[in-house]
């Protein structure tokens, strides 16, 4: 190759592309990068009247309060982390498996029906889902307890027992999200070269072996990318569903960063404290996403960047 063409010439050549990119760039600059200055609020004692710049600088005070003086910090960390990890371990493979199974179906009507029915729950609001869960698990006539009663056991008040909270949260989450998640994987599966399937069949591979050696390797890049993205969001476990589902009896496993912040930060109007917690979440998410990306690059050669 000759030396690279001078910068200005390259700029001129792609001026239309840059122009097209301009609105998106402006959007990100204004709405995503500029607000990052707000992080400084976490290091200040924010006085709403005096404004951000005039407020006193307190350094790491709120971080110290949150991380070290807070007796519940380890509990919150453990709960948030475990809820996220369990959702990942159980909830991540589910759409993949469903997509692989759907891919094997021959009857397209059945396939389409199953797809539609399975991603309907995604559109139902968390409030409705939690109401349904409360009804089904009710110790006083709920469906699950009625079934338990048939086997002769006493009704169990599931929602009051901390040991059940994660199971309830994760399994309802799977039911909510599995159908929607299959969409991407099914799309990726259609991109797998049909010749590979034929070649495998010729070599004597049965259904199962074909899935294992053709389908799965075909969608590995998609799996990795989604995995990286999901891990980055690990500590950001949703506020809404946990808040609706929990009660004081299950705080031991159900109280997470966001519900804690809601009770403490919001109700006291302490912006600095709430921002400090948000910054902490962001930093941890960033570390996780960079680490996972690096791991993926080294082992699989597929990565986000």
């Amino acid at each position, binding site marked *: 190759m000759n030396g690279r063409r001078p910068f200005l010439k390259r700029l001129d050549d792609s001026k239309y592309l840059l122009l097209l990119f301009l609105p998106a760039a402006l959007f990100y600059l204004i709405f995503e990068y500029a607000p990052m200055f707000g992080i400084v609020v976490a290091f200040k004692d924010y006085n*709403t*009247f005096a404004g951000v710049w005039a407020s006193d600088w307190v350094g790491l005070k709120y971080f110290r*309060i949150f991380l070290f003086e807070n007796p519940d910090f380890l509990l919150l960390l453990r709960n948030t982390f475990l809820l996220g990890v369990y959702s990942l371990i159980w909830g991540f493979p589910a759409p993949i498996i469903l997509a692989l199974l759907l891919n094997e179906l021959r009857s397209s009507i059945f396939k389409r029906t199953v797809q539609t029915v399975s991603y309907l729950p995604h559109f139902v609001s968390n409030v409705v889902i939690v109401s349904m869960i409360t009804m089904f698990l*009710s110790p006083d006539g709920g469906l699950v307890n009625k079934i338990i009663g048939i086997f002769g056991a006493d009704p169990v008040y599931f*929602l*009051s027992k901390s040991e059940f909270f994660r199971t309830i949260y994760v399994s309802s989450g799977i039911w909510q999200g599995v159908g929607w998640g299959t969409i991407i994987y099914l799309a990726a599966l259609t991109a797998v070269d049909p010749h590979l399937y034929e070649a495998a069949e010729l070599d004597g591979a049965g259904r199962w072996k074909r899935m294992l050696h053709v389908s799965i390797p075909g969608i590995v890049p998609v799996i990795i990318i989604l995995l990286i993205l999901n891990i980055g969001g690990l500590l950001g476990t949703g506020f809404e569903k946990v808040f609706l589902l929990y*009660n004081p009896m299950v705080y031991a496993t159900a109280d997470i960063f966001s519900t804690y912040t809601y*009770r403490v930060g919001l109700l006291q*109007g302490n912006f600095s404290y709430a921002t400090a917690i948000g910054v902490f979440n962001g930093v941890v998410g960033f570390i996780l996403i960079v680490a996972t990306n690096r791991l993926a690059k080294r082992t699989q050669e597929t990565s986000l960047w």
Partner: protein
Amino acid sequence: MRRKWSMAITLILLTAMIAACSSGNNNPPAASPNSSEPVADATKEPSEQPPTKLTMMVQSHPSWPVNKDWLVYRELGKLANVQLDVSGYQGDWWEAIPLVIASGDMPDLMWMSGPDIIHKHGGEGALVNLLDHMDQMPNLQAWIAEHQEITDALLSTDGKLYMNPAQGAYGDWDGLWLYREDIFLKNNLAVPKTYEELFDVLVKLKELYPDSYPLFVPNWGTMNQIALSFGTANTFYYNEQSKKWQYGPTEESYKQALQFLVDAYAAKLIPVEFGSLDENKRNEMITTNQSFIVYGYIGQIDSFNNLARGENPEFKMAQFTPPGGAGNPGYHGKEFRFQEGLTVASNSKNKEAAFRFIDSMFTEKAKEVVSWGVEGITFEKVDGKNKYLPIVKDTATRAVSFGLRTAGVNAWFDNEANISLFNEETKASYIEAGKHIAPAGQVATFTKEERESISLKQQAISKFVSENVSKFIIGQRPMSEWDAYVKGINDLGLSDVLNVFEQAYARSQQ
């Protein structure tokens, strides 16, 4: 040539799009204060000046959204010679208020609720200390002299008053115990006077109605009321006998109150789904004879009766005289302090008019306007007493159509106006319930440092208590572990918090 044209058209479209989007997003914050001529001539009567424009932001309640043309704004404006330009906070008021202040563009008058928020923003310098301008507010000064405790409860740690005091809009008390009078009469059950008798009555009710949970206790919050009837409280409180600040949930009387609930849950007298109940479930249980005693609000007597009488014409919800526990008198609740009002922005350009307006709300005439409205339009005088005209059907129409008893214009309110809207049943319950209200509790106001020093500990204690009290009640934790539970609370720094309470209270008593 064609390429040039298409470039030009693209650029024009782009510019048009950017222009359209940017003007749409720029919601001008609440109309910037109009600076009218400052009152130059102090000797002139206010009524000879043209009315000063005052901007005001209040809570826009979803049931009666703010309407700039409400009668109450016009009339009050006439009284004080101001022209009110009223708007509502966008979204939840507790989130919107800090945003309005942070924006730097505050209206002249801002409605706020509760001492915490006014101390926070007053301390930051956003609000005017009304006590510095009492010379301009003679009516308010006279009113404060007659209502010193109400005002004292609003003072900051350095003795400043950032919000006008208020009284009367929601009566003197907040909630009350209700029960199915018809069920008790039908089964010849006597109204219990103590919690032991209450337990027996509940057991009898359970025998008569095996599928019911006679006492509706949705979560540990009901301890707020029950603890009061046992002579303690569900939080930090000032004990008038010992003259000390104490924490209810560690006390012996609280243990007895808790034991009542523990036994009640075991005997299935309170809902087994303790902790997961919501309003809909409550209404369902009450109207289908699954629950007979519940804590609620005076307006709910009517709403429950109306809901249920379609199917069950004998259904009658009435005031349930609260039984007492451990030898203490029973109470519905504590005297209610209505702590909402207006604050004046420290950078307002119309402070004089603002003070004049606030002062005018503490005259008898204004009290009549905000409670009853305008004679001939909303009320009439019958035998010397005020009576709403038929156009005011209930509290909802009163607010929606005329703005009566809405945020910001209910400082000195005639509670008789509220009572006049009750039907006979509710009125009887209201009057009876008023006999069982405990006096208002003492208040401790903290400095910022004090508040920060105890905030974490308070949070941790509160979480520990709510978790463990709930577990005691449903039997997940046996009451034999009570001492371990008290030790747990003490270990979280309870004595430190109590010391700060004493310190702050002592300071306010000087």
